[in-house]
C-alpha cells in the first residue's frame, strides 16, 4: 500500500465545513448541524479524522461511499448517529469481503458533507477529499459515478431499529434509486446507506476532487467575514468566483410532496438594486431553476444558493419562509456535471424543465 500524506482535520475546520457544506447543499441535503454535534462529541472523546488526497489512492484500494438517505424533515426528529453510518459501511465489507482504505461522502452538500467524517471516526480510516456531486442533488443517479457509468450496486441500508437491507443488483443507477428509495421510505424515510464501493482508480477518474477542502474554504470565508463584521456574501463570491443573482425578501413559499420529493417554489421580492422586481425559485429538494418572469436566469447544475442576507449562511428549501431576507447567488458547477452526458443526469430536463442549460460561468471558472 502506497503511503499517503494524511492531514488531521481540526475541529475548527469541521465547524467551517458544516457552514460550507450547508451552502453547497443548494437548499437541500439537510443541515449538517446534527452531524457537527456528533463530531464535536467524538472529538471530545478523543477521536480524530484524517483527510487524504484522492490522488494518493492506489488503483486497487477500496473506498466506501456513504450517505444518509431520506427526508431532511425526518432527520430533524431522528437525529444523525455516527454509529449508524459506520454500520452501513461495515455491511459493505461483510458482503463483499473487502477492507476499505478510506471513506468519502456521496455529496459534499448539506448533511452528507459530514457523514464520511462521522463514519471515519468509528472505522479508523481517512476521509477522501472528494465526493460524487460537488454539491447536493435529490437522486442517487445524479452523481459523477453514474455519469461515468460505473457499477451502481450493491447498496446497504441501515435503520437503527435493527433493519438491515441490501440492494444486491440493479440494471441501472435509476433502478438503484427507485429500489433503495422504496426501502428507505419503509424504514421511515431515513436510512444510513453505503453505496457501491469504488476503487481508488475510479475515485481518481470520476470523483469530484478536493470538495472537502472547498467546503471548509467557503465556511471559513463566511465565518471570518462575520467575525470582522464584513459582508460574508461578498467574501464567499470573491473566494469562489460566484455571481450574485438577487437580493430581497421571501414573500411566498409553496410546497408539495410528490414521489418522495419536496417540490415547490419560493418567490422573493427584490430590495436594494432589485427593488421592484421578483425572483421565483423552483425547487426539488434543492434549488433547481431561478426565474425572472418567464426567463430562467440560472439552472442546475450551476449551484443556486440562497443565503441569509445578514450572516451569509445557507437557507434550505424546507426552512425557507415568509419574511426572510435573502441573497441568491450562483456558483460554478464541476465540469463533469456540465458535460453533455452530465447534463442528461443533472441538467434542467432531468428535473422536468424543457430548458437548455446555459452556464453563467466561463469554463475556466469551474475548473477549481
Amino acid at each position: 500500500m502506497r503511503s499517503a500524506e494524511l492531514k488531521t482535520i481540526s475541529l475548527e475546520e469541521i465547524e467551517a465545513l458544516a457552514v460550507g457544506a450547508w451552502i453547497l447543499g443548494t437548499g437541500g441535503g439537510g443541515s449538517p448541524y446534527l452531524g457537527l454535534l456528533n463530531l464535536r462529541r467524538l472529538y471530545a472523546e478523543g477521536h480524530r479524522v484524517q483527510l487524504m488526497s484522492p490522488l494518493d489512492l492506489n488503483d486497487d484500494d477500496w473506498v466506501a461511499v456513504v450517505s444518509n438517505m431520506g427526508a431532511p424533515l425526518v432527520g430533524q426528529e431522528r437525529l444523525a448517529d455516527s454509529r449508524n453510518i459506520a454500520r452501513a459501511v461495515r455491511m459493505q465489507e461483510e458482503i463483499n469481503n473487502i477492507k476499505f482504505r478510506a471513506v468519502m461522502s456521496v455529496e459534499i452538500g448539506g448533511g452528507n458533507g459530514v457523514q464520511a467524517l462521522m463514519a471515519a471516526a468509528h472505522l479508523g480510516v481517512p476521509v477522501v477529499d472528494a465526493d460524487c456531486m460537488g454539491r447536493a442533488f435529490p437522486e442517487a443517479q445524479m452523481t459523477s459515478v453514474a455519469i461515468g457509468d460505473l457499477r451502481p450496486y450493491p447498496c446497504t441500508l441501515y435503520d437503527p431499529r435493527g433493519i438491515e437491507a441490501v440492494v444486491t443488483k440493479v440494471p441501472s443507477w435509476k433502478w438503484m434509486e427507485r429500489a433503495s428509495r422504496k426501502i428507505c421510505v419503509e424504514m421511515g424515510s431515513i436510512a444510513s446507506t453505503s453505496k457501491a464501493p469504488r476503487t481508488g482508480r475510479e475515485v481518481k477518474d470520476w470523483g469530484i476532487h478536493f470538495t472537502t477542502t472547498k467546503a471548509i474554504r467557503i465556511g471559513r470565508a463566511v465565518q471570518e467575514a462575520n467575525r470582522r463584521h464584513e459582508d460574508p456574501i461578498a467574501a464567499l463570491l470573491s473566494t469562489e468566483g460566484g455571481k450574485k443573482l438577487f437580493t430581497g425578501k421571501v414573500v411566498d413559499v409553496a410546497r408539495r410532496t410528490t414521489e418522495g420529493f419536496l417540490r415547490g417554489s419560493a418567490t422573493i421580492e427584490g430590495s436594494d438594486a432589485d427593488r421592484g422586481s421578483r425572483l421565483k425559485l423552483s425547487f426539488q429538494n434543492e434549488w433547481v431553476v431561478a426565474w425572472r418572469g418567464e426567463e430562467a436566469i440560472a439552472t442546475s447544475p450551476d449551484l443556486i444558493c440562497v443565503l441569509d442576507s445578514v450572516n451569509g449562511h445557507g437557507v434550505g428549501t424546507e426552512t425557507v419562509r415568509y419574511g426572510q431576507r435573502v441573497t441568491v447567488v450562483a456558483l460554478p458547477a464541476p465540469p463533469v456535471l456540465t458535460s453533455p452526458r452530465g447534463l442528461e443526469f443533472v441538467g434542467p430536463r432531468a428535473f422536468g424543465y424543457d430548458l437548455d442549460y446555459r452556464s453563467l460561468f466561463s469554463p475556466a471558472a469551474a475548473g477549481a
Partner: protein
Amino acid sequence: MKRIGIDVGGTNTDAVLIVDEKVVHSVKRPTTADVTSGILDALKALRAEPTAAVKVDAVVIGTTHFINAVVQRRHVQKIAAIRIGMPASASLPPFCDWPADLASLVNGESFMLEGGHDYDGRPFMPLDTAGLKEAARKIKDAGLRSVAVCSSFSPLDPSCETTAREILADICPDVAVTLSHDLGRIGLLERENAALLNASLHDLAITTVAAFRKAIADSGIDAPLFLTQNDGTVMQAEIATAFPVMSFASGATNSMRGAAHLSGLDDAMVVDVGGTTSDIGQLRHGFPREANAVVEVGGVRTLFRMPDLLSIGLGGGSHVDEDPVRVGPLSVGYRLTSDALVFGGSRLTATDIAVAAGLIDIGDRSRVANLPKRLIEAALRDAWRKLEEDIDRMKTEAGDVPLLAVGGGAFLVPDRLPGISEIVRVPHGDCANAVGAAIAQVSGEADQVFRDLSREDAIAAARDIAADRAVQAGAARDSLKTVDVEDMPIAYLPGNALRVRVRVAGAIADPDLPAAA
C-alpha cells in the same frame, strides 16, 4: 377599556394606564432585586394620580425575568429529561448541545426510552411503558420536581408524551410535567430544549406569578393578570405559570409594538435605548420582523418565534472611557441614579455627556460643567456612529425610512441620521414597552393535519379553529387578524395530507360590550 401595562426591565420598571387606547398616565420606578417591590412601587405611584385611580379591566406584565434567569443561571432548577424515540438519535442525548455550566445546573437525570412516531404517523417503536414507570419511580426517589418529556414527531402525534404524563401523574403526582409538543414544532433537539428550559423555570414561574398577583392586590387593583409573549400577544397568568418560556423575548416586542401604537406608524425602524443596551428592530405591519431561524437563549438553541433584534451595548448608563474616547459596552445599569456624575457619583456615563451637551436636563448639571468640549463631542460622535452603523445593518432596503426612537435613553439618538427620513419621538416614548404590554392582543393557534383539502381550504379551516381558540382566550372576534401561516406537506400519506399552523391575534374583548355575533 382600561388597562395597566407594566414592563419590568433590567434598570427600570415602567407602568402605564391606557384608557381607550390612549395613555392617561405613566410612571417609571427603579427595578428592585426582588422585582415585585419595584412593581408595587410603580403601581402605587400610578394609582396615586387621581386620573389613574379608576377600575381597570386587566393588568398586563411584560417581564424579562424568566429569560434573565436562564442567561444569568439563577433560579433555574434541576429537572429530569425523558426522551422517547430510541433506538434512533442515541448519540445525541438531552442537553448534548447545552453550555456546560447551564447543563450542570439543570440536568438532574436523563432517560432515553423506546417509542415515538415516524413522519407518517406510524409508531416508530412500541412505547416502553415499563421504562417510563421505572423512570417515574427514579424521578420520585431523586426528589426532582419538574420533568420535560419529548417524543419524536410529537407535533404530529402527541400520544407518547401524553401517556408519559399519565404515568408520571400516577407515580409522582407532585411533579410538574412539560410536554414538548405544547411548545415547539418539528425539530426534536430544539423542541426538547424549549421543554427542558421551560421545566427548569417551573418553580420560578410559580413564585413569580404569585408575587405579581400579590403586588397587584397590594396596590388595591382587582383585575385579571396577563403576561405578554414573544410574539406581542398576551396569555392568561395561569397559562404563563405553565409556560414561562413563552414570555422570553416579550420585552423587546412590547417596546416595538408600543412604539408603533404611540406613533401610529406601522412600518418603521425602531431603536429602544435603555440603561444598558439599545435594541434595534424593524416594524412591519405593526409587528416586529421575526428572526430567521433558530434562536439561542443563554447558549441553548431553540425554535421560538423571536423578534429579529440587534442588541448593542449602548444606553444611558454606558461607561464613557476617555482614552480612546468610547461609549459602552459596560454600564452602571440600575445604579445610574447613584453612580453617574450628575447624580453625585463618580462614574462618567453617557447620561452625563448628554446633560453636558444640553440634550437633556436631569440631575445636577453643574457637576458636568467642566467636562472638556472635545470629550463631549467625541463621546457623542462615538455613540452616534454606533447607532448609525447598526440601524443601517438592520434595514432591509435602500432608501430613507422613519426611525422611532423610544426608551429612557432615547436622548442619545441624534436628530438626523443617514438613511433615515425622520426621527420620530413620541410622548410616553420612554415607557413604550409598558404601552406595548397594555395594548397587547390575545392570540389563538391551530396546528393540525388536514386531508383531502386544497392548500387554501386547509389554511382557511385552520384559521377558523385558531379564531375560535383566540375568542375562547378572551379576544374580540371581529378584531382578529392572521399573524402567521405555515404549511408543511407530509409525504406518503393518502389524501394530500398537509400540516397547517395558523396564528391569529386580536384585541382583548371589552367585557362591557356585548360579544359581537
